[in-house]
């Protein structure tokens, strides 16, 4: 069930009214939202719901054991994390390892092959696994209260953020579940603005760029001119931002209408002045998750020898790349980010204090181009495709030119929204909450009709559904 569809609209309106009818019903409200979340998730594949339940049960049991046996807490934590990673690894890398094992068998002269099972990657498995890991780690370190099974299952299953985040820390959400939910007019208005803006970003900007520029160019880069390839690279930077941030905006807005506050997940990332700044603005909940649980939790963070800190940075980003899938291009994407982060860190230490600082816009332009370069590897199906794209751009090769004023306009629009007021959504929310409800209903209808007319034949699934 995708957010920008009629079936989701009907689903959400039903859940919205039912949840507020049960506002003071305590756990019954949670149960209603939980069942709704399972219907939402089961819409993709009913078997996924069983996996989600098993994962919640596993993490709940691990946390209980951590608290019940303090002497063996470290052991239970390790076991819990390994079980989570085992689930994630099985679904994400099973095919890769079977193919590798068969290749090794063939190289050794064996004629038999390991029969590969047809494993479907459950939508959002990464995100609910990360939620589970953060819960048991936080309970172990006293950063979160233990949750009841109902609460933890809700935390991991709640439909707005189930398949692509934001990752909500247990300590941020659990107390909200224990209060009577609230919804002020301002919160409702801002939630509606977020949903509307997310819809425009996904169904119009990202969709138009994907269909009319990025997909055709990246599927056959050899026939396109350097100018077309360059615009497609910029187009993909905008497409992935509009796609991913749209999901987050809608998730935060939908949760807001149910009375739950989710953290900010994107903060105009292409106005970042350095790569470190970029990672404070891009998918903030995942960046902070990687920082707290991988960079600091596993690699030791920055309170160690410089070379180990640099290794920790690089390793975190390479693993972050590998998390997207077992492909060389994802590793290169992570290594590029990790490498530049290390260079930035070292440069801060050795840069002579007397040197004048570069203007901020230079940092923004350079960072945007580094991020775009890394996206080329991220988006290309093969390593050779990425090299071909970059080679043809540098060599200024001639070829087809399909970028139209419309698609270039979408790129400009996507870039422009990076440089608007950072609190534009809140300002619009403040304005909207002064309008009577029927006025907001009519305005929302007009917006949805315009999006319906602009989005053409349909809307592709969100890019991060596959991870």
């Amino acid at each position, binding site marked *: 069930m995708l957010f920008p569809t*009629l079936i989701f*609209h009907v689903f959400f*309106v039903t859940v*919205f009214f039912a949840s*507020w009818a049960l*506002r003071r019903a305590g756990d019954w409200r949670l149960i209603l939202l939980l069942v709704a979340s399972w219907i939402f998730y089961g819409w993709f594949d009913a078997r996924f719901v069983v996996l989600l339940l098993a994962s919640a049960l596993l993490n709940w049991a691990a946390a209980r054991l951590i608290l019940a046996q303090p002497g063996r807490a470290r052991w239970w934590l390790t076991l819990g994390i390994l079980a989570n990673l085992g689930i994630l690894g099985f679904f994400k890398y099973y095919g890769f390892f079977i193919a590798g094992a068969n290749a090794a068998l063939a190289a050794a002269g064996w004629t038999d092959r390991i029969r590969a099972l047809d494993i479907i990657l459950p939508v959002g498995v990464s995100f609910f696994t990360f939620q589970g890991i953060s819960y048991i780690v936080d309970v172990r370190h*006293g950063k979160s*209260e233990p949750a009841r099974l109902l609460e933890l299952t809700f935390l991991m299953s709640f439909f707005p953020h189930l398949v692509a985040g934001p990752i909500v820390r247990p*300590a*941020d*959400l*659990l*107390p*909200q579940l224990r209060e*009577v939910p*609230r*919804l*002020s*007019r*301002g*919160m*409702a208005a*801002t939630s*509606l603005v977020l949903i509307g803006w997310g819809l425009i970003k996904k169904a119009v900007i990202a969709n*138009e760029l*994907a*269909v*009319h520029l990025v*997909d*055709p160019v990246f599927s056959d880069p050899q026939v396109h001119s350097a100018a077309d390839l360059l615009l497609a690279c910029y187009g993909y930077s905008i497409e992935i931002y509009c796609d991913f941030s749209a999901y987050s905006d809608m998730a*935060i807005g939908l949760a*807001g*209408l149910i009375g739950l*506050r*989710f*953290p*900010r997940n994107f903060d105009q990332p292409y106005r970042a002045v350095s790569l470190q700044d970029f990672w404070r603005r891009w998918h903030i909940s995942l960046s902070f998750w990687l920082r707290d649980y991988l960079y600091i939790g596993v690699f030791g963070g920055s309170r160690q020898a410089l070379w180990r800190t640099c290794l920790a940075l690089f390793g975190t980003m390479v693993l972050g790349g590998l998390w997207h899938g077992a492909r060389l291009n994802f590793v290169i994407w992570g290594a590029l980010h990790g490498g530049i982060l290390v260079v930035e860190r070292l440069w801060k230490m050795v840069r002579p204090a007397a040197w004048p600082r570069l203007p901020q816009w230079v940092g923004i332009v350079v960072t945007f181009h580094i991020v775009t370069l890394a996206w080329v590897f991220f988006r290309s199906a093969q390593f050779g495709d990425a090299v071909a794209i970059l080679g043809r751009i540098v060599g200024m090769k001639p070829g087809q*030119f*399909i970028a*139209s*004023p*419309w698609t270039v306009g979408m790129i400009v629009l996507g870039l422009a929204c990076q440089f608007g007021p950072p609190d534009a*959504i*809140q300002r619009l*929310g*403040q304005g909207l909450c002064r309008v009577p*409800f*029927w006025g*907001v*209903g*009519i305005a*929302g*209808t*007009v917006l*949805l*009709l*315009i999006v*319906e*007319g*602009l989005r053409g034949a349909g809307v592709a699934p969100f890019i991060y559904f596959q991870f």
Partner: protein
Amino acid sequence: MDHTLPWGESPVDLPDEELLPADDPADSVVRSGIGWACGAVLTSSLALVVFNSHALANWADQLPVVPATAPVVALADGWRARAGQLGLNGIVDRVEQGAAAMRKAQWPQSSPKVTPQR
């Protein structure tokens, strides 16, 4: 340990609402917010049934072809046709036409090209 998301860290937090009482005894602020949001969602949903018959018909067309879905498809297609006669599809139709024209627009002095299909 038992904290919640600090105020201002969610995009739905408005600065002038920070000082609202956590549990308003009269519940007036919250009741007003819920009522307002319910009214807006209901108005919009009803208006969409009237003005967005395209979406209903497209959804119905994707249903499995079985006897049980035939009346639903017929109803949705019938409503789209009726809404078209009444001019209720005007907004979507006009935006679609405008978007198609903008997609076809070319750079000055460039030859016409075939629009790529996904």
